[in-house]
């Protein structure tokens, strides 16, 4: 998709054109869902987050000023929605096992999903912002500068976080479970 078309869609949607907004949604739903899924590692939760993000997109698209890439702006929005979603879930959170994909599309490997869920958990334990950093830099392939802009921190902070994540991940994880 070329930039001009995208810009046209955004401008149209900002002006209140429903068809433009609908196309914009269609174009970006998968990306929104993908980020959400890598953020939480769980399909239905990711769907919830994606829905919240779409709704948020509807209300805040007018604030997009074309000063950054639309995708960067979108990352910011999804991550923010994901965090809010997490907060709203907190009170009735239960340990849930990662849901293994039922659809036999051949591309998904259940063990990958379990590993991803574990990764997410480890990243969460590393502290605030670490997961988001790993998500943007490693999963989405953004530069440290881009990630810094999205997460509103200094670029050096991103570099430090990436270093800390790598260090933590290379440590073997002590296992607390097992047979008696």
């Amino acid at each position, binding site marked *: 998709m070329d930039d001009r078309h995208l810009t046209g869609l955004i401008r149209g*949607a900002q002006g*209140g054109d*429903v*068809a433009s*907004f*609908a196309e914009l*949604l269609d174009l970006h*739903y998968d990306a929104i*869902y*993908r980020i959400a899924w*890598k953020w939480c590692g769980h399909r*239905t939760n*990711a*769907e919830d987050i*994606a*829905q*919240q993000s*779409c*709704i*948020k997109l*509807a*209300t805040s698209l*007018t*604030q997009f*000023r074309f*000063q*950054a890439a639309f995708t960067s*702006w979108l990352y*910011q*929005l999804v991550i923010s*929605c994901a*965090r809010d979603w997490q*907060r*709203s879930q*907190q*009170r*009735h959170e*239960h*340990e849930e096992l990662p*849901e293994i994909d039922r*659809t036999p599309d051949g591309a*998904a490997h259940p063990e*990958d*999903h379990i*590993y*991803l869920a574990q*990764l997410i*958990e480890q990243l*969460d334990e590393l*502290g*605030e912002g670490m997961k988001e950093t790993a998500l943007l830099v490693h*999963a989405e*392939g953004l530069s440290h500068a881009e990630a810094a802009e999205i997460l*509103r921190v200094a670029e050096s902070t991103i570099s430090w976080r990436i270093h800390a994540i790598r260090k933590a991940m290379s440590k073997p994880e*002590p*296992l*607390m479970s*097992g*047979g*008696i």
Partner: protein
Amino acid sequence: MKPQSFEHHLRHAIPPTPDPQARLRAKRAALAEFERSHLTRASELNASAPTGRTVSVGLLHLIRHARKLPAPNCVWRSGIASACVALIAVSVMWLMPGETRRVQWDYAPPPNSSLNREGKAELQNPPIITQIRPEEGHHAAHHATLEPENERPPLPAAPVSLPRARKTPSPQTETLAPEQVARVAPAEEIVVEATRIQERIQDVPMSITALPSSNSVSQPPPPSSNVEEAVVVTSAKERRSFLGRLFSRNAPVTLQVPQESRDTFEHFEINPVKRVKDEPVSTFSADVDTASYSFVRRQLNEGVLPQKDAVRVEEMINYFDYAWPASESRDQPFKPTVTVSDSPWGEGKKLIHIGIKGYELPVRERPDVNLVLLLDVSGSMNEPDKLPLAQRSMALLLDTLNSTDTVAIVVYAGAAGEVLAPTPVKDKETILQALNSLEPGGSTAGAEGIKLAYELAERNFRKNGVNRILLATDGDFNVGITNRNELKGFVEREREKGVFLSFLGFGEGNYRDDIAQALAQNGNGVAAYIDTLNEARKVLVQESTASLFTIAKDVKLQVEFNPKTVAEYRLVGYEKRKLNREDFNNDKVDAGDIGSGHAVTAIYEITPVGSKAKLIDNSRYEGGEEAAGDPRGKAGEYGFLRIRYKLPDSSRSKLIEQPIRVDAGVPERIKEDVNFSTAVAGFGQLLRGGNYTGSLTYEEVIRQASGAIGKDPYGYRKEFVELVRKAQKARGM
């Protein structure tokens, strides 16, 4: 182990295909929102006098406009149509007679744009704050959540301080507000959606506490979590009134569902019988928590049997004080006591008791204490057995501290923040005054509660002293860090710095035992459940030295059974504490801590070789079991006990070893203690379903326990006997 790096995995993990229905739902909801936000924007431009505007104006616009819409596909149209129906329902409810619900819309001046970093997320619409009149109390508070979406501070803008609001709410905490769920739902789905709303209604107060009248906001009634029961709503009228009841706080929600407790316990399976030949070594971590017993007691006192996962047998056993001989010196802070007796619930089986009593720190040796009380003062704590009990408990604790020890108080909820800077205990009046001035109110997280508590503890850090946070709550963990794993990681990192965390649980209905356990375990602390002032006295006064002064950390126990003498074994309890065999010698693996004077008791049930009580048959292809009489002299042992521990300031573990002799028997001096702990173990297992307790009955437990009461200066053992009677009754009902 991992074929690819985590980076690679993060990049290339393929998400499962999203449900097409979910996709459609998201699109519908977003389009409806889009429509509405653009239409209300247009109407705002037209409207000359914005005050007194009601939602129905916007609604009329919406309906009028929806007709004129080009319909690119019918899905949108039906989505919008159903959104309208839902909105009508909401607005009808809004205008329901007999209730004075008025929300005044106030325009706030546009926030200073310099607050927006990088200028790219400027606010276009002036945010509107719903101001709630204090006298309107909770009806109005509820309606704040019905505020139209686009009138909230939009996102993703940089945090902006809004005038009037004491704390900037996260602009989106209320995205799942009932109104919104209803708005996007087709009419015929409203009933279904309503159940989701019901589940989420408890989130509502979180989104409104930033408002000035937050103190008058009352907690929602404990929601009934069981919403699977069918609620059949047929006519439109009924539907409306159903929604009305659902949304209205003062009209009782008359869903026909039983009030189910929302106390959360993590599920676990009880330890199975193991064959010594297959798995001769059993490893677990020490556990001195007693929360399970108090919780079980509370339930039984109310005449109900506790849920099975609330029963942790080891915590019930460890609730009681046993006279295991204590160690004399601080360097080897405890010594094990091992006894062998006949199992009362399995003929031909034996029980091995392993008792550990921690060294009791004499008063003069006590290190300085730097204590930070982190108290939940949210609205839900407003029950006699919650905040008031916590306050009285803390007052009791003060009496046990030295005059140079310091206490600080941090609260979280409406009145978030530091209530009392670290104050020496000799200023007891000041501390008591601060403590007693706390009142439950408000409902949201005082955002950085836990961080603030740690900050205070670190600021006042005592190098050779005890630095500990005491968290008291009824289970709401809105302490600032909302992600459970992140919270765990945070507590862990703080532990490395020397600040530990203990947990005191209060009340019921919302008690999060699972989180309490996780936090206390990661924070090198104890988790206790306080149901009465008596319990507070036990935990905070009698055992204060134990809960405050750690004498050994990462205490792990390992028993290797002798296949020549033992055929099968089973560890009673400690399911949540098992460790891998290799973890025993790995000093990196965290385990339980033992405080000054703490006692830990573990019970194994074994089936000696040759006994008919065996559950697992011999393997066909292995030789018959040899009779005892092995010339190497180990035939006289059932097994070998190893205990690893670290002194509080060391990171290298020490080892204690001791054989378990077949003829160990039970010394007369501790006979009653062995019998009593056996009775408690039997009772715990019965409550968990009694899979391995044969024909053991409550009657039998009562008989055993009554015969082993001993001195019992505080009456805990007598109380236990009463409790078993109550269980007997509760079961009969």
